[in-house]
């Protein structure tokens, strides 16, 4: 089963850290991805730029709207994702708990929709 781990943090928290603190916080992610790879669970991951860099597009009444920023204004923002392939939800949850984000933000675990043959 594939699961998408969505990493939510407060962007303002990150901005308030010193350069050293930011480096320190980033370090364990490399180890985490490495552990996922060695376990054969890793499919892909990316870190995202802050939501201010994003745009939201929709078409309403035949008109295309483009808005600055995220689709939903929330206290915590999705700052990255990891796509994993593991046998079941329990394993996905234990990987989510190991994700460094879990200790200062939140990790949302979403099972990927399985196409029916």
């Amino acid at each position, binding site marked *: 089963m594939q699961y998408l781990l969505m990493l939510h943090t407060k962007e303002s928290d990150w901005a308030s850290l010193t350069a050293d603190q930011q480096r320190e916080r980033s370090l*364990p992610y490399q*180890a*985490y991805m490495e*552990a996922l790879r060695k376990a054969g669970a890793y499919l892909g991951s990316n870190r995202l730029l802050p939501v201010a860099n994003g745009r939201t597009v929709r078409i309403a009444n035949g008109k295309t709207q483009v808005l600055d920023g995220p689709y939903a204004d929330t206290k915590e923002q999705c700052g990255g994702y990891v796509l994993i392939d593991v046998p079941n939800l329990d394993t996905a949850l234990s990987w989510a708990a190991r994700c*460094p984000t879990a*200790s200062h933000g939140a990790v949302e675990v979403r099972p990927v929709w399985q196409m029916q043959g």
Partner: protein
Amino acid sequence: MTSLEGDAARKTADAVARRSYGKLVAFLAARTRDVTAAEDALSEAFASALADWPVNGCPRNPEGWLLTVARRKLIDGVRRRQTGEAVGTQLQILTEGLEDAAAQAEKDMELPDKRLALLFACAHPAIEAGIRAPLMLQVVLGLDGEKIASAFLVSPAAMRKRLSRAKEKIQQAGIPFSVPEREELPERLDTVLAAIYAGFAEGWTDPSGTDAIRRDLTEEAIFLARLVVELLPQEAEGLGLLALMLHAEARRAARRNVDGEYVPFAEQDPRLWNPQMIEEAESMLLRASKLEAIGRYQLEAALQSAHVHRRLSGRNNWAEVVQLYDALASITDSPVVLINRALAIAELDGPQAAVEALQDIATDERLTQYQPYWAARAELLSKTGAYDEAREAYDMAIGLEHEPAVRTFLQKRQAALLRH
């Protein structure tokens, strides 16, 4: 109701819940084996108590009061759910034993303690191993499902589902509410102890005690082990498990420094250890050894004891420690034991010998996602001067760790390697 009376009533109810919850569930479910119905009836009885006691005062025998009310709710429940003939049989089963018992309880007589039978039912081989500890915590101690769920890292809904499936199984598969016969006892007791230890281990992962749910879990596990020791005083392994958990718990305060960082055993300040708990652990271990039935938990407790004595006396006892690990390895199939044995060998014969000892288990698949294996490997490799391999092993350990304090500790160790 004044708030003061309300508080007093709540306190009495809490105290009874803690002391008697499992006893009452065991008693109410003994005949029908319907744990869910017993729990529902009991929780209604507790709710009635909170409404009644502040007004009419706490009853002289709160346990008896609760049993009487719960029994009535249980019978009402059967009447509501079932019709016709089924009601008759069910009610007959229910009323037979319960009438007498309730009458006895009301006359202040001690309720027969069937908690041990309940523990054995929860850890029955027919119940899926992973749910046994949560089941015990809920059914015997009355811990709420949400707490248990977060401690075991599953969602509350999933935990509720698994717990209710297990309870259904107890009823439908005809799992007996009884203490196994003599010849069956050691093996069955083993599953009970394993489940208690699993509960303890979940609580143990939060040594700083910042997460109240997990801290409680270690206390609850110790409570259950005390119960086993009280009800089966001649079982050496029960005593061994209690000794093991008390030893571990005694060092809780020393496992984090003032900054909340992880402190490994060798660097802990023994003045922060709890001397009463250590003393109690030692006396449990002594009692166990007199029964002359050695087992896994006694050996593990003996190891804890040896480590503590070494730190307190300064006397090198690594040869003894390695021997204990050898004995443990011969009766368990646990790679964890072999990891710790390798670390002890490092102290006795040097890091190279330890790396070789670890090599023997490196192919065990269970270890690829086991943080302590990688941490031990990293530590040993760095001591032999294999810095690149050590760094890689630290990467794995860091990536697999979910506790920030331990992760930080490992990162610091890895960073220290960069100087080489």
